[in-house]
């Protein structure tokens, strides 16, 4: 390895490493506390003063996935001895499981709406970004700013007209409606980021392809898309994070059918008061898909944003 003047000294690196690791650990504490709470019993979760060491239980997860009701002695007798470990957990609390909870449905809704809108957003966003990057679109700068400006509206501000409009179109509380809505909200970010990526891809490649007889579509499909994959991946992360976690529209526009998990999770209640372990369990499970997605794409996340954020 050759000596480089720009490479920091070993001591400096160590110091930087310690500082960053220190920050990372501090920032992880609240997150770890959420995960740990998921394995506490309801009384441990609200222990006064808080407990760090506790006997782990799956009660939070059982409560997350089931509906229970407080049982009268007669009901407990009728139910007989518990057949499964989760029946046993419920019966130890004097409750019986009455059926699965809505969490599964809500989670599935989040998957459909989150990933659906991200995919649609990438398709539309890449096409629009390509056009803005390569063609002379009339009023290009104004259109680009217009696209950005759509992100400036507070969701609450447009929620009433959207609510009325969705109802008239039959989109209210449907997956399609929410996918279209989140796509529209995310398009501004994705067009802006993706245009940056596509600007970086040399025009010469496509010109060569066009001379070889490719049509524009083919050139776009075969030359530009593979090269923009990194940028698309990192943009997709940001779009997914938004759509996955969105709350304001979800709480106002969805209910029985298409409600996603974020409005649902804080509302999980137990047999008395808020069921913090179940809330924590719900939050933990909900974090996993987007976490996995990010870890898989982390190389792109860091590399990608280098090209995409701002044109040099």
């Amino acid at each position: 390895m050759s000596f480089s003047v720009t490479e920091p000294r070993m001591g400096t690196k160590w110091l930087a490493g310690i500082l960053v690791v220190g920050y990372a650990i501090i920032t992880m504490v609240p997150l770890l506390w959420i995960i740990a709470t998921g394995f506490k019993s309801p009384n441990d979760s609200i222990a006064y003063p808080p407990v760090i060491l506790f006997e782990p239980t799956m009660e939070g997860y059982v409560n997350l996935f089931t509906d229970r009701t407080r049982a009268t002695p007669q009901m407990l007798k009728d139910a007989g001895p518990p057949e499964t470990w989760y029946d046993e957990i419920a019966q130890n609390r004097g409750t019986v499981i009455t059926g699965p909870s809505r969490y599964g449905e809500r989670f599935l809704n989040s998957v459909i709406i989150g990933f659906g809108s991200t995919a649609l957003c990438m398709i539309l966003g890449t096409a629009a970004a390509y056009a803005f990057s390569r063609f002379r679109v009339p009023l290009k700068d104004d259109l680009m700013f217009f696209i950005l400006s759509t992100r400036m509206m507070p969701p609450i501000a447009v929620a009433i007209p959207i609510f009325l409009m969705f109802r008239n179109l039959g989109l209210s509380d449907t997956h399609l409606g929410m996918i279209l809505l989140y796509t529209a909200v995310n398009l501004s970010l994705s067009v802006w980021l993706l245009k940056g990526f596509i600007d970086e891809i040399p025009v010469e490649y496509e010109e060569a392809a066009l001379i070889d007889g490719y049509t524009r579509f083919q050139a776009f499909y075969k030359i530009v898309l593979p090269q923009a994959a990194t940028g698309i991946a990192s943009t997709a992360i940001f779009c997914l994070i938004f759509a996955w976690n969105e709350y304001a529209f979800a709480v106002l526009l969805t209910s029985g059918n298409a409600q996603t998990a974020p409005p649902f999770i804080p509302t999980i209640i137990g047999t008395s008061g808020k069921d913090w372990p179940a809330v924590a369990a719900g939050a933990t499970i909900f974090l996993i898909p987007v976490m996995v997605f990010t870890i898989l794409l982390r190389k792109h996340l860091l590399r990608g944003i280098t090209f995409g954020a701002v044109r040099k």
Partner: protein
Amino acid sequence: MTISPIDRAAAGTPHGVARRIRGLSDRTIAWIFVAPTIFLLLAVNIFPLIWTIRLSFTDYRVNRPNNEVSWVGLRNYERILSDPAIWDTMQATAHFLIWTIILQVLIGFTLAYLINMKFKGNDLWTTIIVFPMMLSPAVVGNFWTFLYQPQIGLFNYVVAFFTGADAASFSMIGDVHLAPWAIIIVDTWMWTPFVMLICLAGLRSIPDSIYEAAECDRASKWRQFWTITVPMALPFLMLAVLFRGIENFKMFDLVVQLTGGGPGNTTTLTSIDLKREAFERWRTGYSSAYAVILFVTVFGLASIYVKALNKVKQR
């Protein structure tokens, strides 16, 4: 690799003809590519906006379907702009906005600068630092009420451990003076990684050759930082500020779950106030005017800002 029918057709057709027959003109393609995006944005963003503007001149109330709707001209706007309570929420929003941006830029840039020293394992730790921003703000806000509780919350116990003060002696969300800071802390915890990522991108975009040249000129590290690193990373920083600024101007879910706007009105940000007017009091016309005022404000500030950003980029 398989050869698609299009390829085969392309191979068998003379170039010029092919482009005329199958290949659409660039102009057409441009429109095909842009049109769906523009259409969707018009339908979901602009059409409701126009509707909102229209409603803002009426006394319409969604919850009174039987009432006759009448035009009230600019009365809604007059009422809002002359209401001192609204200026209080604007101030609360400005306080929140300014401090979250300052803290996130400072911490985010510092972290990015340190990570860019490329110590061993920096990739792993970067990924770990990014985790908080992947959580749902509503769930985060909800959980932090729990962490902030003086009796059973972790936050107070950690502060108590380090300062020696009694954990129950202060309340982050119950105290009029601390509550605005409580929401700033949570937002900073959550979104510093976003600023850090963009700063990291900026730092990595600076070619090594520039530093090497500076080193030849015997410029000190301190001088290099201020004459090379900061100016070159500035456009990225400004972009991060733009995105965070827009997001936090709209801030709703996190704060609503955390404080509900209290105590009193100390953390009632404009979006929370707007939601009360629109979805609790159902003063649709009034809240539409409110929404328009907010939109004009953020739109105006952002366009000035984007102009400045473009100037910096062109330097």
